[in-house]
């Protein structure tokens, strides 16, 4: 299963580290996480991100999901009202299981990232037989 790393509760806007003058914001994408048949599936909403701008990294057990958004401004138009804001997406998880890196399946469709993370063979629970003394 996946444990979330360093996010502020109830806030869906994460501050970017370092340069405070940068007005760019990173949003926390909504995710669904479930497990079935030795596979952890993470589904993340990243509307406005094109498939080439999605970046998924797995380093040791730290899984980072990133999506870059190019804010949309129609030419010759001025902003009238806005109910939502656009910005990049970042979300970091630590995975409690060893993942078989070669078998990770990632697909991005209609602004949704779907990651399938199969558990690697050596971390599958092994039965240890207890000998009677």
């Amino acid at each position, binding site marked *: *299963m*996946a444990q979330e790393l360093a996010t502020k509760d109830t806030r*869906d806007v994460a501050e970017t580290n370092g340069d405070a003058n940068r007005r760019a914001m990173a949003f926390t994408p*909504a*995710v*669904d*996480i*479930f*497990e*079935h*048949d030795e596979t952890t*599936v993470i*589904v993340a*909403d*990243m*509307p*406005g*991100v*094109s*498939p080439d701008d999605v970046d998924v990294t797995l380093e040791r057990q730290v899984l980072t999901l990133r999506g870059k958004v190019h804010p*949309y*401004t*129609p030419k*010759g*138009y*001025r*902003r*009238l*009202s*806005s*109910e*939502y804001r656009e910005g990049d997406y970042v979300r970091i998880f630590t995975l409690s299981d060893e993942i078989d890196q070669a078998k990770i399946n990632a697909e991005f469709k*209609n*602004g*949704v990232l779907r990651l399938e993370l199969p558990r690697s063979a050596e971390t599958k629970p092994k039965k240890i037989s207890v000998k009677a003394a």
Partner: protein
Amino acid sequence: MLQPVFSPLNNGDPFADMRRMQSAMNRLFEGARAPGQSATYPPVNFWAGEDSIVMTTELPGLTDQDIELTVKDTMLSIRGTYAEPESGDDIVWHRRERVDGSFLRSVELPFRVNPDHIDARFENGVLTVEMQRPEDDKPKRIEIKTT
């Protein structure tokens, strides 16, 4: 001097009660504004041009087939249904934050739009609708004569 937490009669600040009420009201409405459960889903952005208007909204996970867009006079309605989340006996859920179910939102446009000249696109989970003001509805410029 230390003031007791709640003293309705002996209170230097006549607005304290009002503020307390206000923060209680804010707390009450906070729950209703949780993502996905908002009364006005999906949130929309509007852009105004000379004689046209653009609306954008984020609908991640839908396809163009799942969205129904209708316009009548100055009312634009967006209707859609998200796919059922995966189910099965062997599924163990850890997190469920994404929106599901169906929604309907109607928004009032600042002017009538020509229903034959609407350009709607759906790309990467974002719906963009460009609407034109009909010719007979455009404001006419009136010339002012000088004597």
